[in-house]
């Protein structure tokens, strides 16, 4: 069998998604054996920019003209483009102020008005610019889901990730519900599971790092939290930490 060629790249991000690949210590050697690594500057010199890729894992949000060019390059050069991580899927941590503060203001706060101010626009997810074939959510993504994706691609298909909220995994682990029992600002009911409720399982409310679950009842979550005394402003701030594009009236 031909080895599928693999590209791993990053846009505006913390490199956590790429690091997640390197964190698959037990499987990394097998991965490197089964794929032909064509582009992976973080781990391999002389990346091949001319190649065509069977699979491109691209992390990060799109926030500069350079990012956009890179994204288009990988879209055009790849059979399967995977939005790798929450930033790529939802904009992520860097996009949290998109709705509240204009970009130039943010830039000015860091770089002043000098010439060294980099060109940049509000960080946006891939789907605003190109079509993607699959996504792995999470900030950082789960190793297990990355491995599932790689296995599925080798098998000629894409992984079947579940689409339900964090609460299911949280309950199944028999942990205390922080929303009901501790009146904490837990976003579990509206967030995509797959992390096995990492945070609630350690006693920390879900901060929503995996983005919205399909057809979330956002309006009801909002009501639940308002009832518990959180201000609308605080709730929205928390919800927008990883995803700005919430429809707070959605009940679907």
């Amino acid at each position, binding site marked *: 069998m031909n080895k599928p060629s693999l590209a791993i790249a990053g846009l505006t991000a*913390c*490199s956590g998604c790429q690091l997640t690949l390197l*964190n698959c210590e037990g499987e990394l050697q097998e991965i490197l054996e089964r794929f032909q690594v064509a582009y992976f500057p973080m781990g*391999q*010199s002389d*990346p091949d920019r001319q190649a065509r890729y069977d699979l491109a894992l691209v992390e990060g949000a799109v926030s500069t003209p350079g990012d956009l060019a890179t994204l288009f390059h990988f879209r055009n050069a790849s059979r399967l483009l995977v939005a790798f991580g929450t930033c790529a899927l939802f904009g992520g941590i860097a996009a949290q102020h998109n709705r509240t503060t204009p970009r130039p203001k943010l830039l000015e706060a860091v770089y002043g008005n000098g010439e060294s101010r980099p060109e940049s626009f509000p960080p946006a997810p891939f789907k605003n610019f190109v079509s993607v074939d699959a996504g792995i959510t999470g900030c950082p993504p789960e190793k297990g889901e990355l491995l599932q994706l790689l296995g599925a691609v080798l098998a000629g298909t894409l992984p079947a990730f579940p689409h339900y909220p964090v609460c299911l995994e949280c309950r199944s682990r028999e942990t205390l519900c922080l929303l009901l029992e501790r009146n904490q600002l837990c976003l579990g009911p509206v967030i995509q599971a797959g992390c096995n409720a990492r945070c609630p*399982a350690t006693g920390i409310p879900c*901060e929503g790092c995996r983005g919205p679950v399909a057809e979330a009842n956002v309006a009801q979550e909002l009501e639940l939290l308002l009832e518990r005394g959180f201000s609308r402003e605080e709730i929205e*701030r928390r919800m927008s930490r990883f995803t700005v594009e919430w429809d707070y009236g959605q009940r679907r």
Partner: protein
Amino acid sequence: MGSVVEVNPLSRVEGHGSVKVYLEGGRAERVELCLTESPRLFEALLRGRSYAEVPEIVCRICSLCSTVHKVAALRAVEDAFKLTVSRTTQLTRELILHGGQLQSHALHLYCLLLPDLLEVKGVADLAREAPDLLKTGLKLKQVGNLIQEELGGRLIHPVNITLGGLGRRTSRDTLQRLADGIEEILPSCLQALQLFRRSLPFPPLPTPHYLALATAPHSFTGEEFQLDALPGMPVSRYREVVSEWTVPHSHAKSARVAGMVPTVGALARLNLSQAALPGEEPLREALVEVQGQDIRANALAQAIELCRSALAARLLVEELLEHDPADTGRPPHLTPAAGSGTAAYEAPRGVLIHSYSFDASGSCTAADVITPTSLNHLALEENLWALAQALDGSEPALLTGSLERLVRCFDPCISCAVHLVQL
């Protein structure tokens, strides 16, 4: 006519960057290090966020050092609120930082640097050409990560270490498993000393001005900086000694400390601190070897720290196992108050400073993060310049290859370098 030789992108480093050498009549005229990572403007992200959110957000500056960013941010917030944490919490934080250092050094040494020693292009080649060495490195990394994941609840951007305490105390069973894991890798750590003793075939480079924190044994934090032989400077007054500015060609900032060009990281730490751990006799020779060396010895210094972290982690696990079961590390209830706080930590790559101010409602009014890579920025440029001059007239391929290797010696973390935060 002038021409430019470029290394773009810098590979096998974390983040996006490039090096440009401007040649004039075949001679190196100028070297520019451009850290081109897209900025995420963390300062603006933090403005108006509550004290509780600051560490959660700011740890996303960088995945590789997310643990130490998180701990530093927590400490800075706690400092602002004059909060002390329980012994369990302290020990857990120290242990997870050693996990972080193990994982980071193992990654850098075995996946990013080793290909240079073996003259191959990267980790994929290693899997073919040196699978056993790679496997050893990955095993070390795995144990570091196991510590991070078990204690932090998540491998990157840990959740269990929180303001004033812990989500929950690590169970005895888990600690026992960690102890077993650490025991297993101790021999490999010692082997790393031999492996990374080989230095790169460069001409000698400028002697660094080492900068590190004065820390207690197996701790990562301290109240004072040490810069070469200069007397201690208190962390709380870091602004008086650190001067930072932006440079036109790079998204990162450069810094001087007390007017000097500092070098931070493993090499600096080992040159400045003498604190030894029990059981570290086998390290002595290597420790002597890195004294007074230029940045090429950073790899050996990291290997030494790999051993130290494993030894320290073993001690910490034991201490945690024996420590008072009543101390669960449960965080106290916090009432926000106006204040400012600063904390400095030794990240794997060197000194890291977090500093925040809050108003009476606990909302963040000022934030400042100085990362090791910005502290190293000037030293790195100086070294590049020195190397470019020494290699004057060489083939461009040799020149760029050598420059790239030099960059790797510093183990720069570009994504954090450009996310400096200052309000």
